[in-house]
């Protein structure tokens, strides 16, 4: 049980870190749209439009790491695995 919980905690930590890094390593708040700037060639105005894109932020990464930490802590509450006893 302990081992399982530790493995799940590790998988969660690695997966969340991987997703966060792979989706832009956003060091701000989670975003569901990102700004896209274009320059109007006649007026020179830089316009800002938003493109729908999910970008996890530090608060999501932090929540996932916290969950992984809690799972890992919970694994220690399960105690050491008992050795197998052979019944005769």
């Amino acid at each position, binding site marked *: 049980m302990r081992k399982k919980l530790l493995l799940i905690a590790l998988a969660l930590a690695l997966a969340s870190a991987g997703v966060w890094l792979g989706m832009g390593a956003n*060091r*701000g*708040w*989670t*975003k*569901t*749209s*990102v*700004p896209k700037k274009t320059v*109007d060639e*006649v*007026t*020179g*105005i*830089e*316009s*800002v*439009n*938003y493109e729908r894109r999910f*970008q996890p*932020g*530090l608060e999501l990464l932090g929540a996932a790491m916290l969950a992984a930490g809690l799972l890992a802590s919970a694994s220690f509450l399960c105690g050491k695995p008992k050795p197998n006893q052979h019944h005769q």
Partner: protein
Amino acid sequence: MKNTIINLFALTSLASAAAAAPQDFDFKDPKGVNNAVFTLDAPLEAISGSANGVSGTVRFDPADPAATKGKITVAASSLHVPNPVMKEHLHGPQWLDTSRHPEITFEAKSLANVKTSGENTTADVTGTLTLKGVAREITVPVRFTYLKDKLGVRVPNQQGDLLVIRANFSIKRSDYGINPKAPTDKVADTIELSLSIAGAAPR
């Protein structure tokens, strides 16, 4: 001979008057380029967003820019920030209360320190900014760029002129009753604003 000179003078005056006539520029942009960008400092990340629901009319005379008058309106519902929870708060009653105050307006009353160089005119524009139902007189530095006969380049089959207005200035959210309880170390009191808009005067 004397009559010819008088006629020529009259014709020249008429031509100059026609060329120098003030024009009404419409800032409702079908291309959706017009925008206002806002930024507030915050600990994790600066809160930055934009609004593109710009409309309004400005009367501008390139020969007499000091006489410029007009009103620009930004639809409060068009304000956008990339975080959906933050956007909901922004539009909510504690912040902009967009359902009760759907428009943010600036009405220009007078210009000072007017300087023109080529197609660009800079001036300090004094007017009334109305935000969340609070109206305050402010003075902002503005740059006008008059683009004669450029409307046709932007919008096919239309003749006319363009007027580009750019302004960068700051206001305090506490002056407009925008969530005064929010501590300034969590969200800055100062809002940096940047306006980039183009109006058209078709002929």
